């Protein structure tokens, strides 16, 4: 595997402009000669499919949901960053770039991040033009809020449903292209394999989830916009259907998988209520703007939270990090909560929760203003827990939320398989070891609206008038491969449900590859996962057949991939003998329990090459250089 990041020459602020100029173009009348497959219809996939179709490419769009509008981007609450500097508070493209590299604990590519910051402002313009109802001031100007990891107000939002509104914008743009006949839409279709011919991605194999029919689709390029892999932990804030299957199967066809151990734990989620728990619910991080996080000073505090006086409360984030207070980055806030609970200060029946309190915000801003800003989040909290956050503090605990790692891509968003691209959370590129709040929406839309339309031509230009069709033998072979796999799953005929294995895997991952990791724990986890994989293929029972709607079969296939990925995540975490961002190795920490990076030895992206199921992955390293952002220990004090 050769890793060429294709970062353009020149000063960082000129790279993207230069790259767009230097790249090959496909002239408008030739664009219709190219077929492009876009897998996934979230912010990245929806925006990419719509924009490529607007340009004239022939697009096929696939999603597993019943409608493109249901992709999990919809659940993002808080907002989207953009370097507009509407607030005149010192923001700039450079500052957004700087904050993102620093927030990512210096494990992201500078050039990619700069480009992200550069196009961020265009996203807000585009979405506004589509009718996204971003919050406005009384004057009619756009409003902003601040978010963790930043000292400026650059986050645009639409009540607490920013992801939903942005997704509906992209969905509407996509729907327009479907209506015009420029995009062919395949809902309830799951991509189960990638077809490669002479090393190039030339199509996919899909299963129609309504009737089990397997089919092949050919194209000049395939775009993976299939999101992240947080559900490897079983319990996460991802949707029930979010999975790694499309990415993982591409990985097994030659796409390098980068930094799989970089996962983000979100600090403000609802604590677990019992063993029936099927997923975790996130409360927007924007709550940390006005909410104050605390635990009782007294370990055996028995009073209800709203009766504990100020002097008996420990606002530990404000105490330890006076400069950033409750707005420290996510990883810092999450680990601090865990430390408090590990030390015995946790609340809730489980002892695994901390308080998030709006008492002083309500005193300062008034009930009405708090309701206006956070009303729907408070309502959601009350609906789930039965508690009213206006009267008693919320209880929160960290949960897995986002995966910074993903399919390796170069500056053009192309993976190590030519013709296969990865966008949005599915790729690894922009967030380093930790993503800042309100940056996921930004990256998904940047990739789809503004990056891929400008980089894909450079690849396609070489294949003008090259026909691709699904009659090549590789298509039949790949389809047969999927068929065999499906039959294998159905024929194990064991006595355990797929869900059983998912729960087991989740427990291992959370315990040993979650918020903090150790050499010993990771080694143990690898053994346990290998054992689990063996058990899975001997004991799983998938009822029903493959020619019908079969949710257990869908689930079983996805879990088998999660098990394989889980093992690689542990190996990646084991390899990285440092702590950075979301990856915290207990052996490597500062006196203040902060992540201790080792820039000398680990300033690289770890890219893993699949060598066969029972063979070791091969590690490739893409060195990271920092010419603009000064490497420093992150310090949010």
């Amino acid at each position, binding site marked *: 595997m050769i890793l060429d990041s294709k970062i353009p020459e020149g000063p960082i602020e000129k790279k993207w402009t230069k790259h767009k100029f230097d790249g090959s173009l496909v002239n408008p009348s030739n664009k219709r000669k190219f077929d492009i497959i876009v897998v996934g219809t979230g912010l990245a996939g929806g925006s990419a499919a719509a924009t490529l179709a607007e340009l004239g490419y022939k697009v096929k769009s696939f999603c597993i949901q019943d409608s493109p509008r*249901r992709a999990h981007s919809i659940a993002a609450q808080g907002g989207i960053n953009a370097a507009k500097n509407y607030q005149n508070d010192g923001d700039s493209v450079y500052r957004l770039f700087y904050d993102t590299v620093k927030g990512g604990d210096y494990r992201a590519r500078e050039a990619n991040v700069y480009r992200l910051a550069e196009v961020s402002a265009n996203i807000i313009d*585009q979405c506004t033009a589509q009718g996204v109802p971003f919050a406005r*001031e*009384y004057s009619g100007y756009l409003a902003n809020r601040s978010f963790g990891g930043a000292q400026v107000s650059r986050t645009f939002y639409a*009540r607490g449903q920013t992801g939903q509104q942005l997704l509906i914008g992209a*969905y509407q*743009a996509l729907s327009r292209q479907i209506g015009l006949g420029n995009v062919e839409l395949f809902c309830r279709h799951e991509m189960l394999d990638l077809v490669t011919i002479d090393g190039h991605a030339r199509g996919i194999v899909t299963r129609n989830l309504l009737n089990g029919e397997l089919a092949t689709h050919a194209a000049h390029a395939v775009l993976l916009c299939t999101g992240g892999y947080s559900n490897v932990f079983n319990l996460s804030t991802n949707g029930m259907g979010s999975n790694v299957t499309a990415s993982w199967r591409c990985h097994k066809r030659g796409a390098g998988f980068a930094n799989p151990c970089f996962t983000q734990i979100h600090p403000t989620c609802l604590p677990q*209520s019992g063993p029936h728990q099927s997923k975790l619910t996130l409360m927007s991080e924007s709550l940390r703007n006005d909410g104050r996080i605390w635990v009782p000073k007294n370990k055996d505090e028995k009073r209800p939270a709203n009766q504990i006086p100020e002097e008996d409360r420990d606002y530990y984030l404000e105490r330890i990090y006076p400069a950033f207070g409750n707005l420290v980055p996510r990883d810092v806030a999450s680990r601090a909560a865990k430390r408090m609970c590990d030390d015995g200060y946790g609340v809730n029946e489980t002892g695994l929760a901390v308080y998030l309190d709006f008492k002083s915000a309500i005193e300062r801003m008034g009930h009405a203003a708090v309701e206006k800003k956070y009303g729907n989040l408070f309502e959601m909290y009350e609906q789930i827990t039965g508690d009213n956050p206006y009267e008693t503090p919320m209880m929160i605990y960290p949960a897995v939320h986002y995966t910074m790692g993903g399919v390796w891509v170069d500056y053009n968003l192309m993976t190590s398989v030519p013709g296969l691209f990865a966008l949005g959370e599915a790729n690894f590129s922009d967030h380093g070891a930790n993503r800042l709040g309100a940056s996921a929406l930004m990256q998904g839309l940047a990739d789809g609206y503004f990056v891929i339309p400008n980089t894909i031509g450079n690849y396609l230009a070489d294949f003008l008038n090259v026909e691709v069709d699904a009659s090549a033998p590789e298509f039949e072979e790949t389809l047969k491969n999927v068929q065999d796999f499906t039959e294998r799953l159905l024929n194990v005929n064991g006595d355990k449900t797929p869900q059983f294995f998912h729960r087991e895997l989740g427990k291992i991952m959370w315990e040993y590859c979650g918020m903090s990791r150790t050499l010993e724990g990771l080694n143990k986890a690898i053994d346990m996962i290998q054992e689990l994989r063996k058990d899975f293929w001997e004991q799983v029972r998938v009822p029903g057949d493959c020619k*019908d709607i079969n949710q257990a079969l869908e689930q079983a296939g996805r879990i088998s991939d999660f098990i394989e990925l889980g093992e690689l995540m542990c190996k990646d975490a084991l390899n990285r003998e440092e702590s950075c961002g979301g990856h915290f190795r207990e052996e490597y920490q500062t006196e203040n329990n902060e992540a201790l990076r080792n820039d000398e030895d680990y300033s690289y992206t770890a890219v893993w090459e699949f060598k066969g199921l029972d063979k070791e992955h091969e590690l490739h390293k893409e060195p990271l250089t920092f010419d603009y952002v000064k490497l420093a220990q992150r310090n949010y004090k």
Partner: protein
Amino acid sequence: MKLTLKIWRQKNAKDAGGFKSYKLDDISEHSSFLEMLDTLNQQIMNSGDEPIVFESDCREGICGVCGLVINGVPHGPGRGTTCQLHMRSFKDGDEITIEPWRADAFPIMKDLMVDRSAFDRIIQSGGYISVNTGSARDANEKLIPQKDIEKAFDGAQCIGCGACVAACKNASANLFTAAKVSHLVVLPQGKVERSERVINMVEQHDKEGFGSCSNQTECEAVCPVGVTVSNISRMNREYARAKVKNFFNATRGGDKCKK
């Protein structure tokens, strides 16, 4: 909690289907309604049978994919989606009836899963603002009064779940269609295409086999996000406006507002 569940089972779109009874013994009141069904499915699978097909994804009330008629009410008791319903809303020993959405335009695919692609086709017929990526001007160039943004949002927040259709005796999707028409028409950037949009969307709505509105507001009562029927009034005004405009345009020999 102990529960008796009467659940609609239907093999496929052609099968007649029918209710089947299940018993559950040990359900926590903190469990969500869908987690209760997860538990039932594990129980069914452990006994070697095929689990009940139902849909869910975000389980946070925003994706709109879950949707069950519980004891005759879409999304069951209380405000919110099925996934936001918790077992504390029921009593120990309750019998609960669970059915899919029922409407001609939402054919049942299997058990509790229906096909709502008709909603997508309504949006494809015109539920958007025609702006290509790259054409947009600065977002602050056009000022939009806060009250207009709020009004737009009231429509834009529709999650496309289809409870409005399931609750309506005519199986009308007027609330869904009106929410989108309103979202876009109250914004200045959405006014340019207002006439074509409303006519195309309303016609697509009718073509899909959804019924008409007879102003009983059952839809508003079950909408999990609180979309109000005032949006339907706005859509009707918009539709009348567009039709009148068409009429006068036609008498003057101008183009009709329809693609």
